[in-house]
Structure formats: C-alpha cells, structure tokens
C-alpha cells in the first residue's frame, strides 16, 4: 500500500511538471493579456511598458523558471482579472463545481444502475428496449442541445426552475459556500446537474447492461442458480458486484469527461464554478489563471484515479495494489 502510494506520488509529480510545461507553452497562443487590460486607444509604448512590468517580454524559460519557483511554494501566479492569487480564486469556485459534479454523479448512480440491471435481466422487456433507445439518443445528442432544451422546457415554458446562476448559498464550517441546504440553491442546481447527468448516464446504462449480461453467462452464476439461491441474491449480491469492476474503471476515466462537461454546463447555465471561470479566463487571456486551472484539474485527475485504484481493491480483493497502477 505504502509503496503504491509512493509510486503514485512520484508519477503525479512527473505528470504535474509536464502539465505545467504544456500549460505554459500554450499561453502565448491564447492572445495578448495586455490587450485585455487596456482600452483600444492606448498606445503601443504604454502597452510595452505594462508588458515589461509583467515580465512578458522575457524568454520562455526565464518565465517558466519564475513560475516554477513560485509553484513550489504554492504560488501559481496572480490572476490579471481577479487580482488575487490564482489558486485562491480557483479554490473559491471549487465548491460550486464539486456540488454540481456530486449531484450529477449521484443522479447517474441512482438512475443508471437500476436501469442497466433491468436491461440486463430482462433484455426482451419493452421497458428495457425503450431504455436502450433512449440511451442511444442520449449518447448522440450534444450536451448544449440538452441544456438549451432543459432551459426551454423547465424554465421558460413551465417556469419550474431558474435558468442560470447558483442562487442562495450558505456558509458551512466557515469555508464552504454551499447551495445544497437552501431551497433556492437546490432549485438552481436542478437543471445543470440534470443536464450533466444526462450527458453521462447513457454510457453507464449500456456498460452496466453489457457487463451484467456477460457475468450472468458465467459458470458461478449458473452454479448459483443450480444451488437454488434466490434470484435477488444472485443478481444483486453475486452478479452486480462483479459487474461493477469495469464500471468503476470507466468511471475513473469518465471523471475527465465530467470535467470537460462541467465546463460546457457551467458556461451555459452561468454556474459560478471552475469550468465557467476557466472559459472566462481563456476569453480574457488571464494566463496565470488558465495555467493554474490546468494544474489543479491535473491534480484532481491524478487523485481520482488513485482513489479508483484503491476502490478497485475493495471491490475485488484479488487485485493486488502493489503490482497495479504502474
């Protein structure tokens, strides 16, 4: 276990260095940050002066060195727009994104698992067929169309949920601005988390169905049947547990997709989270914030994947951690 974690930390450091290098290299391609800070009529001289003050005229490696030195001390630069340390800005927006992601994952688990199992147990049932059709449609419709449709139906036509923003939040433990505990906050959460869940759900329904069907064909299940175990026990105790193994792996990989989808969902619903912040930072050429975001997200990836490997061990004890993950 310890060796595993140690290896993982080393891996993570390596990944982080590469991410930071890449995020630094693309900065130049995003545009000119000074252009965003000044009005149209400001002269080139003035602009150059600001550029000098910011150190933007220095060579790439000098700039990277400065950045890396700060990063070791936990300083990922100062956002041009927010005028605060980039890391603080991101951490401030993190709760909003985590709550959104959490709610949609919850929805996915609660809906996708029973649907997948049903589709596997009774593949010929009308409902299963309908589920498969719906999931095919869900896979092929882009998320922004889902989002716009949601807004149109639920907020414009039915006036059930607000179309943008996060609503009322309250502070928990003095460090977490949460929208989960107010009625207004939950109302605002409804559409974005539903959209996000719809984007992720089909793939899980299909995966659980396929895996479960395969497991149901295996020897030990047949043996269980012949032993006369109850159907419930076979389906949910024996079959489902083994089905979940690949599902968890895919879930870990899907965490990446989730991040990408939060960017889209947050932009459409004006959800004040990290993804929205990132889109804004890109359009404002707030390069320190963009780099910091990429590094934080990279960090989240590494951590979730480590967790996935740990959960793996819990679900299936035959998987040995030390030999796994490298």
């Amino acid at each position, binding site marked *: 276990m310890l060796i595993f974690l140690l290896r993982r930390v080393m891996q993570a450091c390596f990944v982080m260095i590469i991410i930071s290098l890449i995020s630094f290299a693309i900065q130049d*391609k*995003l*545009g*000119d940050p000074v*252009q*965003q*800070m*000044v*009005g*149209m*009529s*400001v*002269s*080139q*001289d*003035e602009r150059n002066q*600001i550029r000098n*003050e*910011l150190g933007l005229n220095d060579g790439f490696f000098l700039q990277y060195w400065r950045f890396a030195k700060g990063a070791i001390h936990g300083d990922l630069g*100062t956002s*041009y*727009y*927010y*005028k*605060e340390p980039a890391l603080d800005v991101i951490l401030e927006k993190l709760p909003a994104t985590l709550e959104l992601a959490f709610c949609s994952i919850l929805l996915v688990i609660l809906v996708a698992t029973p649907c997948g199992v049903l589709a596997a147990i009774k593949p010929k049932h009308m409902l299963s067929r309908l589920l498969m059709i719906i999931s095919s449609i869900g896979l092929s419709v882009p998320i922004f169309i889902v989002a*716009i449709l949601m*807004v*149109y139906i639920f*907020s*414009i036509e039915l*006036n059930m949920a*607000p*179309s*943008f*923003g996060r609503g009322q939040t309250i502070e928990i433990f003095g460090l977490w601005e949460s929208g989960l505990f107010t009625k207004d906050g939950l109302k605002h959460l409804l559409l974005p988390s539903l959209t996000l869940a719809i984007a992720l759900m089909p793939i899980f329904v299909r995966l659980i169905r396929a895996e479960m069907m395969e497991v149901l064909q295996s020897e030990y299940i047949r043996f269980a049947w012949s032993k006369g175990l109850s159907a419930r026990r076979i389906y949910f105790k024996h079959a489902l547990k083994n089905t979940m193994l690949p599902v968890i792996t895919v879930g870990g990989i899907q965490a990446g997709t989730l991040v990408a989808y939060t960017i889209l969902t947050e*932009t*459409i*619903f*004006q959800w*004040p989270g990290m993804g929205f*912040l990132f*889109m*804004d930072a*890109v*359009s*404002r*050429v707030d390069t320190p914030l963009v780099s910091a975001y990429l590094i934080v997200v990279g960090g989240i990836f590494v951590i979730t994947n480590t967790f996935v490997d740990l959960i793996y061990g819990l679900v299936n004890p035959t998987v040995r951690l030390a030999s796994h993950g490298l």
Partner: protein
Amino acid sequence: MKKKVIIVCCLALLFWNKATATTLRMAFDADPISLDPHEQLSEGTLQFSHLVFDPLLRWKQNGQFEHRLATKWERIDNLTMRFHLRHNVTFSTGNPFTAKDVVYTIERLKKSPDFRAMFDTIKSVSMIDDYTIDVHTTYTNPLLLNIMTYVFPMDKIFYQNQDQIIKYGETFASRNVSGTGPFILTERELGSRMELERNPNYWDTTSIGNVDKIILTPIRADSTRLAALLSGDVDFIFPVSPIDIERTKKIKGIQLVTLHSTRILLLHMNQQRRKEFQDIRVRKAINLAVNQPLIVDKILKGYAIPAGQLSSDRFLGHINNLEPEYDLTKALELMKEAGYEKGFRISMMAPNNRYMNDEKVAQAITAMLSRINITVDLKTLPKAQYFKEFDNRSADMMMLGWQSDTMDSNNLFEFIIACPDAKTGMGAYNASEYCRSYIDDDIRQANREMNPERRLRLMQQIERTLYNDAAIVPLYWQSLTWAAKDKVKIQDIVNDQNYPHIGDLFIEE
C-alpha cells in the same frame, strides 16, 4: 376591536407594499473589471461610472449635452473654459463635493494610461472658488466638452494618497469606491454579481427614476441571457443577438429597443503587404463588389445601417449623399483595366466574437470578392487573439470596428486613417498603411479649429477624399439592441454609446 385590527393590518400592508424596494435585475455581457473608473477605458467601466459616479455633463439621446455636476459652462478665451459646479452634493462617504474633487479627478485622469491620451489636451485646471474651475488647454480644442463627459468626480478626501492605478494588481481604488452617483455599491463578486442600492441623498430629486436596488449579473452566452429574461429571472438585458430579435419581438410582455450606434465596421486593404492594393482601380473594384445593404439585410437582419463612409450621421464629418455603391460589371471592368482579370489570392482575418455576427459577415465578404476573381483565404479568431494579429498586420485584409470616444469624426480619422506613427500614436489602427500627408494636416487642423463651419468642411473633405481614393471598405454602423420586460421603461434611458442612465429608469409597479 376587530375592525381596528383589520384597519391596522390594511395600513401595515399598504406601508409594507410601499416599503418593498423596486429591484432591477439586469444581465449584460460584461461587468466592470475594476471599481476604479480610471483603470480601463471600456464600456463596462463607463457603464459602472454612470451608476456610482456622476459626470460633469453627459450626452442626451438627441446628441445634446445635459448638465450634471456642472451647472453651467462658458468660454473665457480660446484656451480656457469655465465650469460652475453644483452645490450641496455629497459623496457616498458623506464628504462634500467641491471643485477640489474635480481638479483632483482631472489630474488623476492625466496619469491614467487609458485616459491620458485624451486628457493630454488639458494643460492645467485651476480652482477659482469652491464651486468654479477653469480648464486650460494646450491648444484651442473644439472638443473640450466631449472630453469633459469622461470626468466623473472622485472623492478626493477618500482616495488621495492611496490612488495609484495598477492594471494587474490590487489597489485601493479598484476595491473601494466613493462617488456622488444615483447608486451605492453594496456587494460585489467579481465576474458573477454586483449589487447596488439607491443613494438616499442623491442630489437629482427631480428624476423619475424609481429603482431602489440593482442586481447586475454578467451573462456571457447570448442564449442564456435571453433565456434568463424570458423565464423572468432578470428584467433587462443587453445585447440581444440578431437571430433572436424577431423571435423575441413576438413574445408578450417583452419589449425591444434598438438604437443606431456610431460604431463603424470596415475592412482595411494593406497596401504595404500587397502591391495590388496600391492600384486605386483594384480598391475601387473591391468597394464596388462588396454589397453592404445585402450584408445588413441578410446577416444582420436589418440591425445596422450600410455605410459608404466612416462618419455616422451624428458626426460632423458625415456627408449625406455618400452611399455605398454596388456594381459588379463596373468592378470587373476595373479589375480588367488594372490587369487583374484573372484575379489574385489574398489573406483575410476577422474576429469571431467581437462584433455582431462578425464571422458570418467576413464569410459573406469572401463570397462577394470571389465574384471579381479575388480568392480570399479567411481566418477568423477570437478577439483576444485577433487584436494581436491586427497589431502585427498579419493579413492582407483585416476587419475593424471603431467607436469614436469623443463622438466626433476626427477620432476615427486619427486612429484609422492617419499615417501610422508610433511616436504620436496616430494611425495606430491603420492596417491599410494608407498614408496621405495632406489628410494628416487636415486632421491636425481640425483638432484645433474652433469655427464649426470650417471644421465641418475640413472633415467632410477628408471623408470625400477617402471615398474618391477608395482607401478602405466601409461596411456598416452597427445597431444596439436591448430587451426588457414591458414595465421597465428603458426606452428613455438607453443611448447610442450604451451607457444606460439607470438613475432615471422608471419601473411600473
């Protein structure tokens, strides 16, 4: 007894009703980057300035000046103008407003990187008494009043000694604010929310404005912003994208207000990069091949005015009968005459998120130029990257939109037409590299000419030369479209510079 209770209850209800604040929830595409009105010369900053500060004078919808903190002004001589200031005005901190604050503000403007180019013309400001100042200019300046619309007096006692302007760092002024304006900032979450409350001591008691509270949310995506209005989550939005306008018009309870702005969209033909563009026949042919009315009609759905010149009809240099001309046969003939019958290949760049439908307009122009055998390699970029390319003059043809800060033609000429000169900053956006020294002379003269007649002639002369020379391709003047609920009377408070005077906004109960 029972009756009394009911009466008391009714009364209470009545008062409670009165006491509930009229709240305006508005969603614009951007919010101010800083609370410091001198940090950036941008639409967001100026909109904010009109809420929390008051200008000395401001533009009315009809293009006239309206007195605000200046109650009267008069010319003393050619270089001096006297401003009389309003009495009994206080800042939100409670400090009284006096001439000292105005002097302080103008001096600070002269230090701001964004504003100093405009305020360079002011040599000094002297205080005559507590409510009178004299503004001295270096040369005669016919546009002094236009420039003074940018003076939003700041609270000297509050700001002084901690008033540095830094564009990329935190300063006192970027986080704290004290103005005389109709609203007082109460809460701000940068990039997502701003709350303002009505200034209870506001001097302008004659205003019909009844907004007690403003909640401003910047919503960047067009569809989200419109959806927020339609679902009733906000009351007032800007902008409305052209494709949504027709649809929005049909919805009950929603009103649309459109004004023509003075922002001109144009194409530069770079004569340094391409020798073909040095031939006036080619430039004329391109001008003839571009069909402005069609672009306005089909792509902008009529929400613009086709332009044959730079100055909109609000500006002094505007010439009434200068219309864009479209004649394909003539254009082809000219190309043949110039020896380019088979045409040539050029590169073109345009932004894709800066102006209304900019990318589609650029694509349409590509198609129009192909009719005279000019093959265009079009590249469109987000504005953040585009203007970097623009500064580098990276393509043979480039699109530009320009709004005159001074509401005067000469500002257009100075930045877009004058010979590029890094030292003076003239021609900074002249990506045509078109250079006529006599136009530069006219521009300089117009900057100092006090006689309106002569000034008009000078500027019309420039406009005429540009037309005859086919120096650039003017496209259209973009319109501005706001949308609001019917009960929000935005009709009278919006203007073509897009600084809504929300202090005067009336909302029906």
